[in-house]
């Protein structure tokens, strides 16, 4: 990928709401060039979606997130992919990763309550053929996500004027 696109991605990763005009100014390039690069990356699914990082603990209807370690028996010819697909199609599932180490898949589930997540694991996930075991880890507190630290660290401790 060319450097311009990489730089655009870095700037949009910091703040997805930055306009093509602003990005072009910051990178010292033309606005239409930036707009074209963004469209291309959207078309190529390099940019998949524009999302918002939410600190749910600051909102009343707090979400419950669990990371579930899943051991599975891989399927002949399709390895882990078929089961991974069965799992990631559930809307409760936020992410699925194939892992090296003691288990095979790491599945991130988001629900409105502990009960809802537990019920998903016991009723939907565990009964899937070839799922050997699950181990559910609830996230108690998020300190940092996607490179963003959740605690208020934004205070500027500098003096208002200095030499």
């Amino acid at each position, binding site marked *: 990928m060319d450097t311009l696109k990489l730089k655009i991605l870095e700037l949009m990763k910091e703040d997805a709401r*930055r306009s093509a005009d602003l990005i072009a100014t*910051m990178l010292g390039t033309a606005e239409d060039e930036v707009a074209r690069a963004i469209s291309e990356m959207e078309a190529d699914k390099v940019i998949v979606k524009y999302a918002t990082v939410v600190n749910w603990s600051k909102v009343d209807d707090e979400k419950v997130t669990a990371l579930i370690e899943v051991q599975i028996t891989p399927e002949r010819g399709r390895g882990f992919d078929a089961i991974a697909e069965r799992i990631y199609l559930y809307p409760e599932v936020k992410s699925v990763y194939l892992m090296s180490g003691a288990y095979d898949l790491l599945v991130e589930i988001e629900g409105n309550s502990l009960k809802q997540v537990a019920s998903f694991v016991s009723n939907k996930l565990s009964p899937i053929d070839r799922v050997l075991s699950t181990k559910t880890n609830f996230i108690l507190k998020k300190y940092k996500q996607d490179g963003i630290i959740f605690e208020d660290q934004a205070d500027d401790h*500098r003096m208002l004027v200095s*030499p």
Partner: protein
Amino acid sequence: MIKDETTIQPNKVKSMQDYLAPAVREIKPSGIRKFFDLVSNSKDDIISLGVGEPDFSTPWHVREAAVYSLERGRTKYTPNSGIPELREAIADYLHTSFKVKYEPSNEVLVTVGGSEAIDLALRALVTPGDEILIPEPCYISYSPITSISGGVPVGIETFAKDQFKLTEKALRDVITPRSKILILCYPSNPTGGIMTYEDWLPIAKVVEENDLIVISDEIYAELTYGQKHVSFAAVPGMKDRTILVSGFSKAFAMTGWRMGYACGHSELISAMTKIHQYTVMCAPVMGQVAAHEALTNGLEEKDRMIESYNQRRRLIVKGFREIGLECHEPQGAFYAFPSIVATGLTSDEFAQKLLFEAKVAAVPGDVFGLGGEGFLRCSYAYSVSQLNEALERIGKFLRKL
């Protein structure tokens, strides 16, 4: 036995002012200080463009190295000129980055910030009455510390039309038989001006012809955009006449650590080390450890910070031009220096009105000496959203003027 307070005669001391050294008494408080007080007294909802320091925190691995070193109990004095591994790292770094070669054992001195290095150089060199030549607008300290050392500061005005470069003619115009030292600060605080190799050559000629010593404050050396910084010490024949002063504050976001250094001719460094050892003994050990970590493992992080300043530089310069303020393109440091002459106000009036009416703090250019009147120093070491908000406020303010 406790002394009876009534026996102390309060009238004996006429005025403490009478006791002060004349050189200190006569120094005016810095214009930045005055403006700082004004800003601090009207704190609410102010967006500041007034700081001369990075908005990044010191990179974590640098802080962590200092913490780890403290945990292991490294809390003792160090050699006067600094821990050997740091001096070596500094020498390597200057050689790799700016093509100037120093011998770590006797040509490098680690100081408490670049400011101490400049003070040491002046105290080591100045005989009362010597003239110290200072291109202005410039960092606010050069002139007062020159006076404290007994020297006579002589400003050399530089101009926006020359991108605030020092020209051969301007330098020649101020030289007298008493001229001894030239203090350079490029990339420049407050103008963002830089000097290229071609710009330096005629200056070096004048320096040689007039047998001047140069104190070259290169604290912003890393922060250039487009052209790489050229150290004055790297100009042929100039190394032995130059004390290269730099530090970790700006490029490595380490202002509060007060870590700086001076490099130069061994006899000069040795003279400066004498003063250093009798005044501060050595720079703090934890700062030296952190600085060593920054130089050995922090160069990538430094580059990322510089890229980010560059993006914001483009943003603020374009922003000023769009709202109608003339602004030369700064090639270094992290300041924009737009002209406010068109408004008919003085720098001080403009900055004060801007502060009280638009709630934006920026430093009036006149505090930086000759040539600063009519300008405003605006730091762009702020987040993109803060810069946009500040530009919007300044734009609105200008339309109402």
